[in-house]
């Protein structure tokens, strides 16, 4: 695996430059591109095609690109996968909204022929605008079963909230799922961690539906959540103020092995006083307000890196894909994300890695769930 990054302004030249840096050996098997939303997607693909003719291309737009030397904004970052013992197949499912499960199943089918390989991972890049992304994972899980870990992320648009793009060979797509089946003779390992802690007593979901929470403890969910965290008055009435307040304060949902974080910042309903978690939060569930700071988040970065590398069963990593949540930037700040980058550099220890700040992380290793908010997800390859 090789990684290249270009800060060049021209989209085509940036792509050429990043791709040439990334391709270190002969005949790369896949180019994975993470590009700032400001780049011209068509020019960008033309550059990649020029630098590595005939190589399959996947990728998406970001809310910041992650690579050795610290995260950046506005760049084109390319990871090239190749080498002996590695097999890559790609697929795409379009018009995924409304048929998420089928879209997941369609791209998962690309990993089926690789069942004879010792290690398999299905990676998925999804359009961050698609709702109910869990169903994409359920569809993939239904095809592949428990044997294949799932990994990936949802495209971002630099907080413009107008929607990002996916790249698939020479095409620029929205409302799609790109699937990348990676099979290897060497171990691969997926990990995911978050750095949030529960605050106070749990709140019971007393009314919920369609991915929204209407009441907590029989009161309007928005007010209960804000009251619990002692929010400033403007967060009760102003959508932007709410978003800024909620970004570093996800809602925790109790699971057997811990509490999952749900990002509430983007789907508030000030009139109906309800909150949306982007994914299902069920009636009867136990939830907590959660907070975190740079320390707790960086601790999670360490845990995620440690777990990913340890999952390689003693073999040394040759590369990592690192998908961190766009919402973490609100807590970490510009300086904090550099600290996060430094931690990644330390764990990588010279091994190339690439990734981006996402609108949702995919990492399923245990159980059947795997779509996360406000986490760091890592795929390590040996």
């Amino acid at each position, binding site marked *: 695996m090789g990684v290249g990054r270009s800060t060049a302004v021209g989209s085509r030249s940036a792509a050429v430059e990043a791709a040439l840096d990334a391709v270190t050996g002969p005949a790369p098997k896949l180019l994975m591109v993470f590009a700032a939303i400001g780049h011209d997607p068509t020019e960008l693909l033309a550059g990649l095609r020029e630098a590595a003719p005939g190589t399959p291309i996947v990728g998406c737009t970001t809310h910041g690109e992650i690579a050795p030397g610290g995260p950046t904004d506005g760049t084109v970052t390319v990871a090239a996968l190749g080498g002996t013992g590695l097999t890559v197949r790609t697929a795409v499912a379009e018009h995924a909204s409304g048929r998420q499960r089928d879209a997941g199943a369609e791209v998962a089918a690309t990993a089926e022929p690789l*069942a004879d390989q010792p290690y398999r991972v299905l990676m998925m890049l999804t359009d961050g605008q698609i709702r109910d992304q869990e169903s994409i994972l359920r569809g993939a*899980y239904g095809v592949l*079963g*428990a044997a294949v870990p799932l990994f990936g992320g949802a495209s971002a648009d630099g907080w413009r909230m107008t929607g990002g793009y996916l790249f698939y060979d020479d095409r620029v797509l929205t409302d799609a799922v790109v699937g990348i089946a990676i099979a290897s003779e060497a171990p691969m390992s997926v990990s995911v961690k978050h750095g949030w802690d529960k605050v106070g007593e749990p709140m019971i979901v007393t009314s919920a539906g369609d991915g929204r929470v209407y009441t907590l403890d029989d009161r309007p969910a928005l007010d209960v959540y804000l009251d619990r965290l002692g929010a400033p008055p403007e967060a009760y009435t102003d959508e932007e103020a709410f978003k800024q307040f909620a970004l570093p304060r996800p809602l925790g949902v109790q*699971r057997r092995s811990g509490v999952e974080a749900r990002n509430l910042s983007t789907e508030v309903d000030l009139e109906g006083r309800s909150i949306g978690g982007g994914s299902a939060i069920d009636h*009867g569930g*136990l939830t907590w307000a959660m907070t975190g700071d740079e320390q707790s988040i960086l601790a999670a970065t360490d845990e995620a890196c440690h777990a990913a590398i340890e999952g390689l069963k003693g073999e040394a990593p040759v590369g990592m894909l690192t998908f961190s949540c766009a919402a973490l930037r609100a807590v970490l700040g510009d300086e904090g994300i550099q600290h996060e980058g430094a931690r990644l550099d330390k764990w990588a220890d010279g091994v190339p890695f690439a990734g981006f700040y996402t609108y949702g992380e995919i990492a399923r290793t*245990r159980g059947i*769930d795997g779509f996360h908010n406000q986490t760091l997800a890592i795929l390590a390859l040996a």
Partner: protein
Amino acid sequence: MSDGAAALQVQQLLELLAAVTSLSDEETAVQAAVERAAQALEAEVCAVLTEGRVVAAVGFPAGTVPFSDLHAVVVRERDMLEVAGLGTCRAMSAAWGGSHPGDLVIARWGDDSFTAGERNLLRGMARMLELTLTMLRTLHSEKEMRARSELQAAENAQLAESLGEQQRLLLRLSVIQRAISRREPLEQILETITVAAHELLGDEIVGLWVRDPEAPDRAKLRSTVGLSINRLPSLSLGEAGAAGEAMRVGDVVVLDGYDHASPAIRDLTGGQLRASMAAPVHESNRIVGGLLVASYRPDRGYTAKDKQTLRTFAENVSLALTDAHTMNMVHLAVHDTLTGLASRGLFLERMTEQLATGELTALLFVDLDRFKEVNDTLGHAAGDQLLVVTAERIRSELRATDVAGRFGGDEFAVLLRGVSGLADAVAVGERLVKSLSEPTLIAGQRVNVQASVGIALSAADGEVAAELMRRADIAMYQAKRNGRNRCEVFTGEMLLEFAAGT
């Protein structure tokens, strides 16, 4: 079990309940249940077995669900499950009873064995699944019953509607057939039929087209609802739309739209016609017309029942036309074809009937003077025309109850029923003499003829027709002998003179 773990398991049961009860069919509810159960226990594999098969499962690659392994867990033969690509997983199951028993099987990878709380949770989930499935089945059968009863109600309503329509059709047909049997005027009968078709089929236009007697390949509108006949000349069958087509093929014809309609039809209907249907009309087994219904409504389509209704109306038109035709033939047989007056046979029949009543009856014999001259100088056609005019003039001097007949040549006879005396008969005779002596314009020429009229009254003691005719005949000859253009009443002297040959 700690309070936290207990609270979590209560929460997980509630989540499962929320998930499965929000679904409306068994298949998706069971699929949701296996996913929720796997999620709650952070297990990779979950399956539901009922009736000896796996009805839902997660965690196995598609198409590779190992029934026998899962069943071994159900019957407690094993507490481990081999999951392809993952390895050996700890497994447990929970059963539920009731009318549709089943088993919920869970397998989790890793070292953690299932706690007592988790086993309890699985049992709770199985029980909840049983309740949910029972509820869904009850709802399903209730829904089916409701659907069945709604279907039955709809069928009943349709039957009632169809019976109502049938009744309306029968009612109208009885009106039509009564009109035919009473020999009401044909035009009136045809109008009754077109109006009935209009009311029963609901189309804006009904038209009866009949073959043009002078050009058998053309047809004319004879009776109609919703169209102006005056604007339409006779059309060739090809131009006459569905009616023309029905006349050509001899069967019911349905046309959609009028894209290919003739200019005449387009003009007649403002180019707005959307659908039409016509049935052929017969007269004595010959196709003589077509009964048409047509609509401006874009959604108008014709059902098999509509076709049958139109066919029935067309058959009634055929019946009326055939009956009228038969009547016409009968009329022709007993009436003089030239003048339309009763033939000699019919006249004698009517006279015999009249004499049998015993009423005082007068018989008038009318003979044109100098008819032969007209025939010889102006030709037979002029002679025929003179006879037609004569017949009309005779008829116009009579009451409806009187009978006029032509006996051949220029001989006419008149039967006056129920006269009060000789004076009545003489008055009619004199009126006839006067009327027939009026000049007539024939073949561009003024023609003057006169008539001699002989009058005889029936005797009180019953009399045969032949005797009365003989007496009227003698009186008529007497009128000629006395100078023509006059009428004479039969007397006994005339008989003697006649016998003497003077």
